[in-house]
C-alpha cells in the first residue's frame, strides 16, 4: 500500500504517548479507590476514628491523581478525529454508544458523588458517605468498562455489519459488544490496577516508617493494601489466563508474538525464560532463540485447554495451517487476495450505484460480503506485514508477568512480617517497598504494550490496518502536536508528582482535606 510510513509512525507514536500518559493516572484511580473505600468501610463497621483518618489521607492523594488525570483521555478522542479520520468514520457507529455511555456515567456518578466524598464528612450520614465513596469507585470502574469494551471490539470486532453506502460499520447487536473478550479485558485491566494502588499505598506507607512517623497509620494501611494487592494479582492471573485462551482463538498472531513462536507445533511449550535471536525473520532458517527454557506442553494447554493441541506460530499464520478442529486457516497471501477482492468489490459497488446498475450492485455486494472478513489484508504489500513487533511484545509480556510475580512475593512477605510486627524494624524492606512503586507502573504499562503492540498492524482486527486508518494529513503536523503533547503531559505528570509528594510529606496528621 502506498502509505506515508512516517505519518503512520508519528500517528502511532502520538497515540501511544498519550495513552501511556493517560494510563499513569487511571490505574491509581482504580486501585487506590478500592483501597480507600475498604478503609472507610472498616471505619463504618468499627467506628474507630483512626480508620476515618486513614481513609481521608488516601482520599486526598486519590483526589490529586483524579484531578490531574481527569480528561487526559479526551486527548485520545481528539486524535481519532484528526489523525485517524478514516478509522473514526469506518467505526464511528460502533464507538458512539459505548463512549456516550462512558461520558454520561462518568459525569453523573463521579461528579456527583466525589463532591459528597470530599465535602460530605459530618454533613451526611456515615452510611450515605460510605455509599458515595463506593459509588465514586464504581463510577470510575464502569467508565473504564465502556472504554475497554470499545478497545476489545477493535481486537475482536463483533455485532456489526458493514454498510458500503456509508462506508461505516453499523451496530446490529449492542450486547454482542459485551463479548467474553470484552469482559476478560475489563476484569484483567481493572483488577490488575489494584496492584498499582496497593504498591503505591505500601510504598508511601513505607516512607512514613522510614521517617519514623505515623507508624500505626502506615502499618494499618499496609495491611489493607497487601491483601488487596495479593487478591488483585491472584484474580489477574485467572483473568489473564482466560484472556490468553481467547487471544489464542481470536488473535493467534499476537499469541505467537508474545511467545516468540515462529514454528507452531502440537504440545507446544511455554517459554519461561528466553532471549530472542535478533536476526530472526519470518520464514528464514535462523533459530528463534539464542537461549530458552520452556515448560513442556504448557502453551498448548493455556491456549486450547489441551496439552496435545496445535498452537500456530508466525510462519504457520503466514503460510496457512490446519486448525485443531480440522479446518484450514488460509495463508496470509490468500487473505490478502481476498482482501483485495473485497476492496475491489467496494469500488464496483460504488460504480454500480452511480450507474444504477442493479445486477452489478447485487454482484458487488455479494463479493464484498463474502470477502469482508479479510478486508484489511487487502492493504498489505507482503504477508510479513501481518507480523507485529515480536521482540517488544515478547519482552513486554515477560516484564509484566515477572513483575506481577515479584509483587505477589513482596506483598505476601510484607503481609507475613507485618502480621508478626517485624515490618516496622525492617528498614531494607521498607526501602524495597518505596522503590518498587515505579515497578508497579511498569507492570501495568507492559500489559498494555502486549495488548496494543501485539495486535499490530491492526487498528481493527482483520478489517482495518493502521496504514488504511490514518488521515490524509502531513506527518509534520502530527510531529508538531506530538511535541506539544509531550510537553503538556510531562508538565501534568510533574505537577502530579510534586503536589503528591508535598501532601505525602505533610502526612495524615494535617487535617487538610479538599474543603478545608
Amino acid at each position, binding site marked *: 500500500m502506498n502509505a506515508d510510513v512516517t505519518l503512520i509512525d508519528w500517528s502511532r507514536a502520538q497515540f501511544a504517548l498519550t495513552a501511556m500518559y493517560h494510563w499513569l493516572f487511571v490505574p491509581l484511580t482504580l486501585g487506590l479507590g478500592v483501597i480507600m473505600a475498604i478503609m472507610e468501610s472498616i471505619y463504618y463497621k468499627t467506628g474507630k476514628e483512626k480508620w476515618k483518618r486513614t481513609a481521608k489521607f488516601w482520599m486526598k492523594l486519590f483526589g490529586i491523581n483524579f*484531578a490531574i488525570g481527569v480528561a487526559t483521555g479526551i486527548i485520545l478522542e481528539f486524535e481519532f478525529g484528526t489523525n485517524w479520520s*478514516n478509522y473514526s468514520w469506518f467505526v464511528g457507529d460502533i464507538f458512539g454508544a459505548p463512549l456516550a455511555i462512558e461520558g454520561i456515567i462518568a459525569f453523573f456518578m463521579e461528579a456527583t458523588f466525589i463532591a459528597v466524598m*470530599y465535602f460530605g464528612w459530618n*454533613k451526611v450520614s456515615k452510611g450515605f458517605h460510605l455509599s458515595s465513596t463506593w459509588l465514586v469507585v464504581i463510577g470510575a470502574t464502569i467508565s473504564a468498562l465502556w472504554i475497554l469494551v470499545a478497545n476489545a471490539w477493535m481486537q475482536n470486532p463483533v455485532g456489526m455489519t458493514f454498510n458500503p453506502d456509508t*462506508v461505516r460499520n453499523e451496530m446490529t447487536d449492542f450486547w454482542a459488544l459485551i463479548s467474553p473478550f470484552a469482559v476478560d479485558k475489563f476484569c484483567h485491566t481493572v483488577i490488575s490496577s489494584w496492584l498499582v494502588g496497593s504498591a503505591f499505598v505500601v510504598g508511601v506507607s513505607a516512607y512514613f516508617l522510614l521517617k519514623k512517623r505515623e507508624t500505626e497509620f502506615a502499618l494499618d494501611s499496609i495491611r489493607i493494601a497487601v491483601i488487596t494487592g495479593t487478591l488483585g494479582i491472584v484474580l489477574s492471573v485467572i483473568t489473564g489466563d482466560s484472556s490468553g485462551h481467547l487471544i489464542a482463538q481470536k488473535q493467534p498472531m499476537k499469541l505467537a508474538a508474545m511467545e516468540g513462536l515462529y514454528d507452531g507445533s502440537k504440545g507446544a511449550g511455554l517459554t519461561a525464560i528466553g532471549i530472542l535471536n535478533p536476526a530472526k525473520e519470518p520464514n528464514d532458517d535462523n533459530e528463534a532463540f539464542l537461549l530458552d527454557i520452556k515448560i513442556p506442553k504448557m502453551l498448548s494447554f493455556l491456549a486450547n485447554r489441551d496439552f496435545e493441541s496445535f498452537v500456530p506460530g508466525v510462519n504457520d499464520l503466514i503460510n496457512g495451517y490446519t486448525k485443531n478442529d480440522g479446518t484450514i486457516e488460509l495463508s496470509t497471501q490468500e487473505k490478502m487476495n481476498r482482501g483485495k477482492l473485497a476492496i475491489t468489490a467496494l469500488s464496483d459497488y460504488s460504480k454500480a450505484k452511480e450507474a444504477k446498475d442493479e445486477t452489478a450492485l447485487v454482484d458487488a455486494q455479494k463479493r464484498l460480503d463474502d470477502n469482508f472478513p479479510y478486508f484489511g489484508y487487502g492493504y498489505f504489500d507482503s504477508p510479513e506485514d501481518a507480523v507485529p513487533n515480536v521482540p517488544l511484545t515478547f519482552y513486554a509480556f515477560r516484564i509484566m508477568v515477572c513483575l506481577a510475580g515479584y509483587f505477589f512475593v513482596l506483598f505476601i512477605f510484607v503481609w507475613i512480617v507485618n502480621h508478626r510486627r517485624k515490618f516496622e524494624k525492617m528498614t531494607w524492606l521498607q526501602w524495597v517497598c518505596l522503590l518498587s512503586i515505579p515497578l508497579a507502573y511498569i507492570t501495568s504499562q507492559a500489559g498494555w504494550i502486549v495488548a496494543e503492540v501485539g495486535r499490530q498492524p491492526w487498528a481493527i482486527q482483520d478489517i482495518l490496518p493502521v496504514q488504511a486508518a490514518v488521515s490524509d494529513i502531513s506527518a509534520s503536523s502530527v510531529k508538531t502536536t506530538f511535541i*506539544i503533547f509531550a510537553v503538556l503531559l510531562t508538565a501534568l505528570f510533574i505537577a502530579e508528582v510534586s503536589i503528591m509528594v508535598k501532601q505525602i510529606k505533610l502526612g495524615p496528621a494535617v487535617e*487538610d482535606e479538599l474543603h478545608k
Partner: protein
Amino acid sequence: MQRIKTVKDFLKMYIDGFKSMTWGKTLWVIILVKLFIMFAILKVFFFPNFLNSHFDTDSQKSDFVKQQLIKSNINQNN
C-alpha cells in the same frame, strides 16, 4: 454539625465545600488550565476533526473515505 435534609442543604454543601478549599484550589486551577489548553487551544488550532473541517455532509465524508480506501488498493494493484 448540620445534617443535610433538603436539596438546599445539599447545594450548600457544595458551595461551602468549594469556598473553604485550600490546596484543593490548586487542583481546580490545574484542571481549568488543562481544560482550557485542551479545548480552547489544542482542539481549535491543532486538532480539528479532519472530515468535519473538509466536508459539510455525511455523504461527502463517506465518499471521501471510500475513495481513500479504494485508492490505496488501486495504487497497489498498479
